[in-house]
């Protein structure tokens, strides 16, 4: 048992899973941070991205590495459309914006059911997969398929690029300002409407990209989204709202909990560990861990 736990193979698996969770959560963090909208349909964006990449490869022979871009563009456009046609109107209607948080949750809940069933109608509910870059590479004692490595590298690169973007560019700083305090951000002259549009687009787009990466290594189904939503919530609550470094660390923590937890028990514990972490995090420390007591509700 101990030698399994000490193997580099398990370590690599945990890091890869954790990085992917960090990426999924990054998208949700941008949306929740800037607009305070809990997008429980975020996992469905992951699912859509996965179907874009997989159908691109299966039907048109387009490399999933190109499909990643297609997935990001599609879900990004959805984000822009949702903001322009839905939330911009919702925010100006007083009776709707008063209960915006609750209402948007219900709207996203409706969106989950719609998206899952449209995809199930189009592609059936049968799990799908494809083989791409499935050669095995060895690093010391670790054997990785090329697609897992590629997915990991892309996810890590996007996390890193976003972190740099939020720190170094003026738009990124504006996004961070909005996450910290919306009203004050508007007062100092930030175009709140435009930043919200940008973060929603970016957030949705990252979800789609993550899905395309997931599809390279796992079988996908129309109902695969929920666990990713849950994982993303665990990560942003643990890591702190709008805290990207915290998010990456929290993603890794969750990856380790899940991979090592399953290694110690059995694959049936996979979902229990994930949902258990979710419930535990919300009940024990809804204000986040990284930020001490001053999390944003």
């Amino acid at each position, binding site marked *: 048992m101990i030698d399994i736990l000490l193997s580099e193979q398990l370590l690599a698996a945990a890091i890869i899973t954790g990085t992917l969770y960090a990426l999924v959560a990054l998208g949700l963090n941008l949306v929740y941070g800037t607009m305070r909208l*809990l997008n429980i349909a975020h996992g469905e964006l992951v699912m859509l991205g996965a179907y874009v990449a997989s159908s691109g490869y299966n039907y048109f022979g387009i490399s999933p590495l190109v499909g990643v871009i297609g997935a990001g563009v599609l879900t990004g456009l959805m984000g822009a459309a949702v903001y322009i046609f839905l939330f911009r109107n919702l925010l100006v209607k007083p009776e709707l914006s008063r209960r915006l948080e609750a209402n948007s949750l219900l709207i996203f809940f*409706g969106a989950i059911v719609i998206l899952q069933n449209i995809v199930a109608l189009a592609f059936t509910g049968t799990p799908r997969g494809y083989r791409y870059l499935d050669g095995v590479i060895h690093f010391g004692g670790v054997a990785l398929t090329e697609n897992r490595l590629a997915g990991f590298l892309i996810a890590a690169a996007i996390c890193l690029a976003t972190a740099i973007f939020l720190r170094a560019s003026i738009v990124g700083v504006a996004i961070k300002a909005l996450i910290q305090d919306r009203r004050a951000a508007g007062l100092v002259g930030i175009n709140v409407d435009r930043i919200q549009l940008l973060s929603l687009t970016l957030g949705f787009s990252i979800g789609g990209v993550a899905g395309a990466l997931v599809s390279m290594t796992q079988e996908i189904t129309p109902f695969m989204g*929920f666990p990713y939503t849950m994982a993303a919530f665990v990560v942003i609550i643990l890591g702190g709202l709008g805290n990207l470094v915290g998010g990456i660390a929290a993603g890794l923590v969750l990856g380790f909990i899940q991979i090592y937890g399953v290694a110690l028990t059995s694959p049936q514990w996979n979902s229990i560990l994930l949902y*258990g972490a979710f419930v535990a995090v919300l009940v024990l420390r809804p204000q986040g861990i990284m930020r001490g007591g001053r999390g944003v*509700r």
Partner: protein
Amino acid sequence: MTRALPFVVFLAAGFTVPWIGSTYALGVGLQLGMWIALTQSWIILSGMAGYISLGHAVFFGLGAYFVVMTWEVIPIWLSLPLAGLITFLFAVIISVPVLRVRGPYFVILTFGIAELVKYVVILIESSFGQYSRLLFGTPEIGDLYWVMLALAIAATALSYWIRFTRFGHGLLAIREDEEAAQSIGIPIVRYKTLAYGLSGIIPAMVGGVMALRTNYFEPEQAFDPIVSFTIITMAIVGGSDDARGPLLGAAFFTFLSEMLWASAPQGYLIILGVILIAFILLMPNGICGRIFPPAGSRI
């Protein structure tokens, strides 16, 4: 008189259905009764206190699981009420940590709990070497129908009656402004806990009846998030501020589902989602809010 009309019509229909003498009609009646009972129970917590639960399937599933596990061990006239009692206690116990979480986090937490319990039940079942369970010798649909009718009437009466009690007014105050409610002396913790517990009793019994009806139990099915989703859609579309709302919402979707479920299940769910979103955006008070405007808005 017009205010009482929906109750009278539903009650009359409920007692008429068995005399039609068709199993199909009984099946539809059973479905309708189930959704009315579930939605009315959901309203106690989510409509009145404003704590929206996305995970009411957890009570339905736990009730079904209890009745299935005790089938042929204890009689159902005992196991059904016990199922209700157990979920009541379950809700009261978990409410201690859960109800401290407020606002949108509470909403997603209810969903997470329902899924967590589902996977725990799957794990327990697989440790028994079971994937699903078949029940033999369950009661006829004709008998189950009467039980379901009683549950639907009980749930409707409960959600109607609570509104006129001190407790019900307290819940409404919590929904409008929890801090203000607390400051004028409403025991918010006790009220919320009680509302959470009460909203779980009847769904558990309904889950038990449905398990007996299908003779079959599978955790994935009993704890299906679609159950929670349908409850919410019915409540929102009917209008959750009035005990008549769930009747109308449940009736509308039960008949829609009869028309579509067999031929196009995915189509039915897509329509459900679209209608839910449309109502939230365009008619947040539901059908009932339009037909019967709340007293304050009639000039």
